[in-house]
């Protein structure tokens, strides 16, 4: 295969990933590394570098639209970014120390977990817990728009959320993914933020987290422009058109297909990782 053929095929695959990611709300970044390693037989280090770049592109593109809507909690996002950027830099360093098989195995486990969360989303909860002292001091409590006007919410378990965010950042730096699933877990489940606030704030943080590890990858020579550029442009095009046609689209079947895809590639990544095929 020539370089130009590979770039075109890669771009087409990335458009599909971006489109599916946007339509299902699961993000396309998580399938980029498996696509590049399993389909194009690209070394997983190049794949992670390219994936990180695409994650920054989609997160920034989407955040441009979200910031205005009033769901994003900028203070929560900024505080937790201390944890995610530290974790991301740590994750990028760990990636340089462990073998590619270990990375592929961890990747498979995270894919399975993402599919599980997509099939069984956590129940929406109402927070009645007493407001947390630390959250009040850091002025994290906020409000968000609902059809019945602004609704206030309080934040709790700040240290636990901070710790989980460190884990999310480490995974992002190690695997080149946005780790939106773990970020939402930390904010929605641990800190008791409303679901919509968690998802938009998570998206707001993903680009910053990925930028922190992408710098380390750049200096280590993992960002291969020939592989990264079709992925970045493809995912961006797919995600943007996905967001356009999202309104009114019925995504139930798409989500199911995407979940099956996630499980299949998770098992293949696990198999390749454990047998040393990657």
């Amino acid at each position, binding site marked *: 295969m020539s*370089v130009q053929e590979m*770039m075109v095929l890669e771009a087409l695959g990335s458009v599909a990933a971006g489109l599916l990611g946007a339509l299902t709300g699961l993000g396309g970044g998580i399938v980029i590394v498996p696509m590049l390693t399993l389909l194009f037989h690209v070394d997983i280090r190049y794949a992670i570098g390219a994936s990180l770049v695409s994650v*920054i*592109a989609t997160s920034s593109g989407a955040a441009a639209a979200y910031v205005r809507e009033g769901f994003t909690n900028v203070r929560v996002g900024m505080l937790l970014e201390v944890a995610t950027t530290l974790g991301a830099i740590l994750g990028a360093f760990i990636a340089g120390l462990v073998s590619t098989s270990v990375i592929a195995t961890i990747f498979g486990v995270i894919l399975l977990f993402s599919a599980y969360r997509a099939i069984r989303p956590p129940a929406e909860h109402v927070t009645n817990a007493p407001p947390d002292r630390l959250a009040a001091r850091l002025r994290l409590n906020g409000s968000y728009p609902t059809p019945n006007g602004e609704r206030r919410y309080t934040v709790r378990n700040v240290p636990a959320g901070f710790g989980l965010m460190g884990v999310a950042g480490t995974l992002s730096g190690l695997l080149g993914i946005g780790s939106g699933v773990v970020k939402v877990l930390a904010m929605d489940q641990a800190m008791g933020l409303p679901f919509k606030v968690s998802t938009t704030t998570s998206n707001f943080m993903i680009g910053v987290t990925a930028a922190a590890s992408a710098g380390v990858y750049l200096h280590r020579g993992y960002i291969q422009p020939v592989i990264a550029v079709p992925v970045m442009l493809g995912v961006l095009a797919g995600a943007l058109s996905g967001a356009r046609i999202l309104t009114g689209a019925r995504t139930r079947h798409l989500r199911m297909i995407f979940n099956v895809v996630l499980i299949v590639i998770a098992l293949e990544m696990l198999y390749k990782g454990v047998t040393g095929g990657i």
Partner: protein
Amino acid sequence: MGRPRRRWSEAELERWIGGLLRWGVVTAAAVAGCGALLFVAHHGSMPADFRTFHRVPAGLDSVHGVAAGARALDSLALVQLGLLLLLATPIARVALSLVGFALQRDRTYVAITAIVLALLLYSLLGPGV
């Protein structure tokens, strides 16, 4: 004190951040796309082999090297410049948030945002700089 000075409202700042993110991504994609077209025009029929890992050539792995290569209109350096612009976009967003918190005289969050910005710049510019 007299009349209250006009201060940046949060909505205004959010508009700025939204615009910054949008234009950052568009510019990055345009620069990287031009570099990619240039690369394909000159080297498109080369065989593709990325199975084994080799560090990308020196000059494509640092801000300094990419800037020098892009000035010489090297196609891969242009692609890399686009990717660097993309990387710089969330960093610029954090910097703008820092300005926003400073204008609100929110010292705690100025400090928190400064830590995030320092970590990002450390990662981008490298321990050597």
